[in-house]
């Protein structure tokens, strides 16, 4: 055991000796550290020199490549050495039958009994990834085995399995406790990442991203996934508290690839793909069916509300049916006849008195918005990187990548290129420097297309203007193409300006330039004492352009059209100075860190907007004719911090660590500006204990850990405490004016996150490794934009209102099922579950809404519980919706309930009762990786069980409403007394009044359990013997498919289950659903 401990110490020292490198190059691989051989145990060997016998050998990996820096210890002594750059070693052994222990990070250690003067060939096997990895931690590194906090590491290999070109999307399913919600199918959009549940309501909920040691302000979509070496997701206070006020939502440490010693390595890659929606949209009824339904609704209006007889009601419906979708806009046709409605039919009354489309009624056009707007479009992704060393002191990494993603909609287009240069120089023994420069440029074309357009526009409408005189689509005088029309003046009754096509007449173009520099200076002051100064400057320049063709306005105002230009410049500077001291004395190891950081973020912007483009090729501000309007503004955020950390371990078995950080933030009043954040962590490697020695054959590693600490969240807007007056929309009679927009509120302060983590890590049989953790995450002084009674003149005020707590568990298991020469099969599984409770609330109750969904907070309740009236089915006698009207006893429990058809009776606060939680019970993923000779196959299944979602879109599609699309759900509508159905009798103009409308109730609250085949990858690597002839190392061809299959309730409704996963609601403001994509690619390395 002593030997093992010494081994670890050795590595530990080696590591910290190169602490500079650790930080500078971050993605350190111990394999490339050349430590001075024979530095240990020399005293011992001197004493016993006479008996010593020399043992020589070479250590290689399974592929036959030499391993550099492998530690070799003679068991039971402190005698040892390491392999040189060829993998060779020479050791004078002491014992008679010496046992040599070979250990190497990332590989299973091996014990070999040597014989005199024999040359050994030692093959080390790669061990499970989870053991003894070097992980990147806050302002430093640590070995996974000694780390007291909770972290999930996602390496480059895992990332490449996903075809996502965005880091955030790529993380889904890869680590426990991390919820990644892909809430937009648009190219270039970032996913939302939630670590161990939402810890805030008002402040931002996204984690802090730290790239190569400095907080990143560049949008995630500006990074190329191929530049990423590893991603560490830090989940508990012990691992995040050094980031203090910004760590409340967890920290994601991104480490980029660095140059390595050895020969120059070149990687080339290319992939091509295409996408479609992962979940099919629900089916709209045909234009003909829609008219028949409108007739039926009108007939029902007339009989039930206007007291008309059957015959009168039929006549009423006959006359009015076109008015359901069209306004009366009379037009005289070339044959002299007049039409009142410019509908898609050749007659104003296409439905007969029998309610069926007349035999002589003909459609003028057939327009399928979906088919016209969406198609399989090309996504291309190319990249190259070169890394290597220039002499012994310098190494480099340079990369270039390019992405061109056209998404699925006719108007979408995202382009990005990223280049990255990393240089490391070891100037002297005591001074090193590294520079990282990243530049990325992206162009995002987006027509502002929203899925709601496709949901609500009736099949009746076309996106082209119809020429009733010529009986064909009108031709645009500008373009010679079909005249686009957005329903402003064609008689369409609703949705003016809503277009299937978005950008064809409205060009939105967002360009971004991101520049990121990270310079790190490392001073090895004394043995064990290091000062590291890091400076990072980050710049995002955004240029947004919107152009709206005059053609688009379609005759409403002659030559309107508009051009908007705006620009932002966001800059941030981070400067930190970190002193570390590392010392081993006897069995003790101590590491102390002391640091200081200053951070400034500044955003400046301006914009100008001008209407009146007389011609469609007028595209600039100067060519517009109306008065321009402009704006400009500057905002600034500063943060000052001091921090320190102490790690101590005894005999490599017992670890404790403590950290403290003090942050001052410009976001709060001077009285509440400074916050203290701290943590304590401890772990115990039981497997190192003597009493577990008998089990060490199969129990390779067993570790218990615990941590506790406080971190904060200040992300609540720049001036949360100040009373603010805005001049916006406040000028009057030509004079500048202001109105109050925020009431001063000096009491507002940090949200504090109190986190507790306990866990077990283990490795068994060198095959099965895993982590089980229990956590609790308590958000204290939670900030909420608390609604105010409107009579005080403000809608809400930001208040620290109470405490909520997430408690849960996480499991990660990796099983190397088969690892034979030709066949490998690995299984990875992870699962997370947590519950939420409001533990303190000074007020009796707080309410907030998300879309239509209502949440009520009560002490002892959950922040995720949805409150709604209860639906009581459709009355089989009259087809009306019914709701339960509850009576309550004095304790507030339901004592009785009766059915009512009057929604206003249940549309009250007390009738909105707890209908369950939107929080899933368990979520996670199962991955399988297979390798057979040169073929590899992997797939990941993502699952989420339990949790509810309010599907407003489905609700909307299960009613008839004038001007709205009708869906085949209405096939099941109530039609005659006795019909037992969930779909109420339809009305047209009276739908609100008849309560047949999709009122807010638990009727549309569904279980959101789902499973998704997240990705499937099949790859083939060309055989090495063939390649070596042409000096190529790897050629791999692959096919990947993402989101191939989706199972669950919501998929059946035509709703993407990920859409409402965080808000609890799917509605018109929900983003574009997730895409299913197919990709073909090739990787080449030499």
């Amino acid at each position: 055991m002593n030997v093992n401990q010494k081994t670890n110490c050795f590595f530990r020292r080696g590591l910290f000796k190169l602490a500079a490198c650790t930080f500078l190059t971050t993605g350190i691989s111990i394999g490339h550290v050349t430590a001075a051989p024979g530095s240990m145990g020399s005293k011992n060997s001197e004493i016993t020199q006479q008996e010593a016998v020399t043992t020589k050998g070479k250590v290689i990996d399974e592929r036959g490549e030499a391993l550099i820096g492998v530690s070799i210890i003679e068991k039971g002594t402190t005698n040892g050495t390491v392999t040189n750059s060829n993998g060779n070693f020479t050791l004078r052994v002491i014992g008679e039958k010496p046992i040599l222990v070979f250990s190497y990070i990332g590989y299973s250690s091996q014990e070999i009994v040597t014989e005199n003067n024999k040359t050994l060939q030692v093959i080390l096997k790669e061990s499970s990834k989870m053991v003894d990895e070097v992980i990147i931690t806050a302002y430093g590194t640590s070995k996974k085995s000694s780390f007291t906090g909770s972290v999930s590491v996602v390496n480059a290999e895992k990332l490449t399995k996903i075809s996502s070109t965005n880091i955030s999307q790529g993380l889904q399913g890869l680590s426990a406790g991390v919820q990644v919600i892909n809430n937009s199918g648009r190219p270039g959009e970032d996913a939302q990442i939630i670590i161990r549940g939402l810890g805030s309501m008002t402040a931002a909920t996204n984690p802090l991203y730290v790239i190569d040691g400095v907080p990143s302000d560049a949008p995630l979509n500006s990074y190329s996934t191929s530049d990423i070496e590893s991603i560490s997701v830090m989940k508990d206070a012990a691992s995040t508290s050094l980031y203090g006020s910004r760590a409340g939502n967890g920290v994601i440490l991104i480490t980029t690839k660095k140059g390595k010693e050895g020969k120059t390595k070149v990687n080339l890659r290319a992939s091509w793909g295409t996408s479609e929606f992962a979940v099919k949209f629900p089916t709209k009824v045909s234009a003909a069916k829609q008219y028949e339904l409108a007739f039926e609704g009108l007939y029902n209006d007339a009989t039930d509300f206007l007291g008309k007889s059957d015959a009168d009601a039929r006549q009423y419906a006959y006359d009015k049916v076109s008015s359901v979708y069209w306004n009366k806009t009379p037009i005289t046709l070339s044959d002299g006849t007049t039409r009142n409605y410019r509908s898609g039919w050749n007659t104003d009354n296409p439905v007969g008195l029998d309610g069926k489309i007349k035999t002589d009624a003909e459609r003028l056009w057939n327009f399928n918005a979906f088919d016209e707007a969406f198609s399989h479009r090309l996504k291309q992704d190319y990249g190259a990187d070169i890394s290597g060393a220039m002499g012994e002191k310098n190494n480099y990494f340079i990369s270039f990548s390019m992405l061109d993603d056209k998404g699925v909609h006719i108007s979408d287009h995202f382009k990005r290129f990223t280049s990255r240069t990393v240089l490391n120089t070891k100037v002297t023994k005591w001074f090193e420097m590294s520079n990282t420069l990243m530049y990325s440029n992206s162009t995002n074309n987006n027509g502002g297309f929203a899925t709601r357009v496709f949901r609500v526009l009736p099949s009746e409408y076309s996106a082209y203007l119809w020429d009733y005189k010529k009986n064909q689509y009108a031709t645009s005088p500008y373009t010679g193409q079909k005249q686009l029309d957005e329903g402003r003046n064609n008689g369409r009754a609703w949705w003016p300006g809503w277009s299937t096509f978005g950008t064809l007449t409205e060009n939105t173009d967002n360009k971004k330039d991101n520049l990121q520099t990270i310079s790190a200076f490392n001073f090895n002051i004394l043995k064990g004492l290091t000062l590291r100064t890091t400076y990072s400057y980050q710049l995002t320049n955004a240029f947004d352009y919107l152009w709206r063709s005059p053609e688009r306005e379609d005759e409403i105002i002659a030559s309107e059209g508009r051009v908007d230009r705006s620009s932002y410049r966001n800059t941030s500077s981070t400067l930190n100075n970190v002193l570390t001291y590392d010392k081993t004395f006897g069995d003790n190891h101590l590491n102390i860190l002391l640091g200081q950081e200053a951070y400034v973020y500044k955003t400046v912007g301006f914009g100008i907007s001008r209407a009146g483009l007389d011609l469609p090729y007028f595209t600039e501000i100067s060519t517009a004719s109306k008065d321009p309007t402009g704006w400009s503004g500057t905002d600034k955020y500063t943060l000052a911090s001091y921090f320190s950390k102490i790690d101590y371990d005894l005999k490599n078995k017992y670890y404790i660590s403590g950290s403290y950080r003090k942050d001052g933030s410009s976001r709060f009043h001077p009285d509440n500006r400074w916050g203290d954040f701290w943590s304590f962590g401890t772990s115990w490697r039981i497997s190192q204990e003597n009493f577990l020695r008998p089990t060490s054959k199969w129990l390779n590693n067993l570790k218990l850990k615990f941590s506790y600490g406080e971190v904060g969240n200040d992300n609540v807007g720049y001036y949360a405490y100040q009373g603010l007056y805005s001049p916006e929309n406040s000028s009057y009679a030509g004079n500048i004016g202001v109105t109050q927009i925020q009431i001063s509120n000096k009491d507002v302060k940090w949200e504090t996150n109190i986190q507790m983590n306990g866990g077990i890590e283990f490795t068994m049989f060198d095959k099965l490794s895993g982590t089980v953790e229990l956590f609790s995450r308590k958000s204290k002084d939670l900030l909420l934009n608390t609604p105010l009674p409107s009579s005080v003149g403000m809608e809400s005020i930001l208040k620290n209102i109470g405490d909520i707590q997430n408690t849960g568990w996480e499991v990660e298991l990796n099983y190397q099922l088969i690892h034979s020469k030709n066949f490998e099969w690995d299984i990875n599984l992870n699962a997370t579950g947590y519950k939420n409770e409001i533990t303190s609330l000074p007020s009796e109750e707080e309410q907030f809404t998300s879309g239509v969904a209502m949440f009520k907070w009560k002490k002892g309740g959950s922040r995720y519980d949805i409150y709604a009236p209860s639906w009581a089915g459709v009355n089989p006698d009259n087809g009306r919706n019914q709701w339960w009207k509850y009576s309550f006893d004095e304790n507030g429990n339901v004592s009785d309930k009766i059915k009512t058809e009057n929604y206003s009776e249940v549309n009250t606060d007390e009738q909105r009762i707890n209908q369950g939680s939107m929080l899933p019970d368990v979520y996670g993923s199962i991955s399988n990786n297979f390798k057979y000779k040169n073929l590899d196959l992997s797939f990941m299944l993502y699952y989420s069980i339990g949790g509810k979602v309010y599907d407003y879109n489905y609700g909307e599609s299960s009613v008839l409403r004038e001007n709205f699309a009708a869906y085949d759900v209405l096939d099941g509508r109530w039609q005659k007394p006795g019909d037992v159905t969930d779909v109420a009798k339809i009305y047209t103009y009276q739908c609100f009044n008849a309560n047949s409308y999709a009122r807010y109730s638990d009727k549309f609250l569904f279980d959101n359990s789902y499973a998704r085949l997240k990705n499937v990858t099949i790859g083939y690597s060309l055989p090495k013997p063939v390649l070596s002839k042409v000096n190529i190392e790897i050629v791999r061809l692959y096919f990947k498919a993402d989101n191939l299959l989706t199972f669950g309730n919501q998929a059946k409704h035509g709703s993407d289950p990920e859409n409402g996963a965080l808000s609890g609601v799917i509605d018109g403001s929900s983003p574009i659903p997730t895409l299913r994509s197919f990709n073909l690619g090739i990787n080449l390395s030499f």
Partner: protein
Amino acid sequence: MKIKKTISTALILVGVLLTTGCEDFLTTNPSSTLSENQIVNDMTGIKMLLQGTYRQIRDGAGSPNFYSPEGINAISTTTGGDIMINDEQVGDFWYFSVFSSQRYDPTATIPTGMWASMYKIISNANNIIVNIDNIPGDASERNEVKGQALIIRARCYFNLIRFYQHTYIIAKNKPGVPILLEPVLKSKARNTVEEVYSQIVNDLMNAETLLVDYQRPDKQYYNKDVAQFILANVYLTMNNWSEAQSYANKIRTKYPLMSMDEYKAGFSTTNNEWVLGYIQTSQDYWWYDSPACWYDFGQNHSPWQAELFIPTKHFAEDIMKGDPRNLTIPNPIYEGKYAATKFLELKAEGPFGDLYDLRGAEMYLVEAEAAARQGDVETAKMVLNLLQTQRGASITIATGKEELTDAILLERRKEMWGEGLDYFDIMRLQKPIVKTISDGHYQEVNIPANSNILIMMIPEKEMINNKEMVQNPNPSVTPVYIP
């Protein structure tokens, strides 16, 4: 040596960084908004706040279509029987309709928005009123600012009290609306209707005094006349006939009636009769929220035809028969219906002319009614006839008090149609609402006098967050208010 030098340099660097002035470093301010200190302690700042408050009341806190003076007029007008919502265009259950749930559902747009908008304006006015006296400087300047803010506040309370409770005469002791006079976040219980009226009268009389010397730059600003105009209406609603008469007289004699040519020009150019009106600029015009657009069926050449409101057949054919103010035409789109041409846009391009708010003719009618109700039929008839003569309308010859009063109320309909008196008169006079198909309405409507459907429910958000608030009766449970 070199190493030692590096160490000391590094330590100095760290030391400097540790001791740099943190509080300065950590204090940041926005550039595009102003801080409280810059506004409420400074005359220039507080004048900017007054400008902003004007803009708020003019624009209905951002929703001119509902809560601006014009929006409130539209809600009021469509409650009455002369102008109806174009069922074929927007459906009879649309926002403005009295029986739309939008009018009495405590979660719906109009009751919640009206309440929030009025109190938002009141809060800004309160910020001025409470702070102005502490600002050093010219007393007359302070008086001018304070007086204007008081009128704005009073006008908001006058709107609130008439929308959220039955009329003063029958509901004096009923819960009105909470009176908030300071910009604090503490909510209050409803004050009685009488207390609210007394606050309104106080504020207006106070303003009248403070603004006695105030010369407004143009008719966009509230001056003494505006205070008196509103006071006349407040007293009329309180059945305080003598005060109503006296205040109405002050305005009536000061603002000459416009000519019929001006009347027919569409109320989009400021003229002598206007007591209060707004000049739209290219930066702040109302787009399609102006009355001209609501009434437009293509006859006005306005850029937007909203086609919302149309006169009833009975109104166009019978009530207005032969009257020069019968600015209606057969509807060019909906056969058998009429369209109004009373409100016209000025130009084919924004900002589409001026918006009028208060005009003198209303004060003729208030003065006449108040005189008649006091039995002073001579004065009443004289004032009424002045208006009728100017308009070229038929001259009332009735001399009986009742008869004359009816004639004056009829004249209010003829002179002021589409200008938002209907709802307030229905409430004030406790009239039922009767709409018949034979009059040209889309359907038969019978709403009894003092129906609870006519007053708005207190918004649910207020009920939940203000524990002292009491709700108005649910009209589906208690249909009619019995005093």
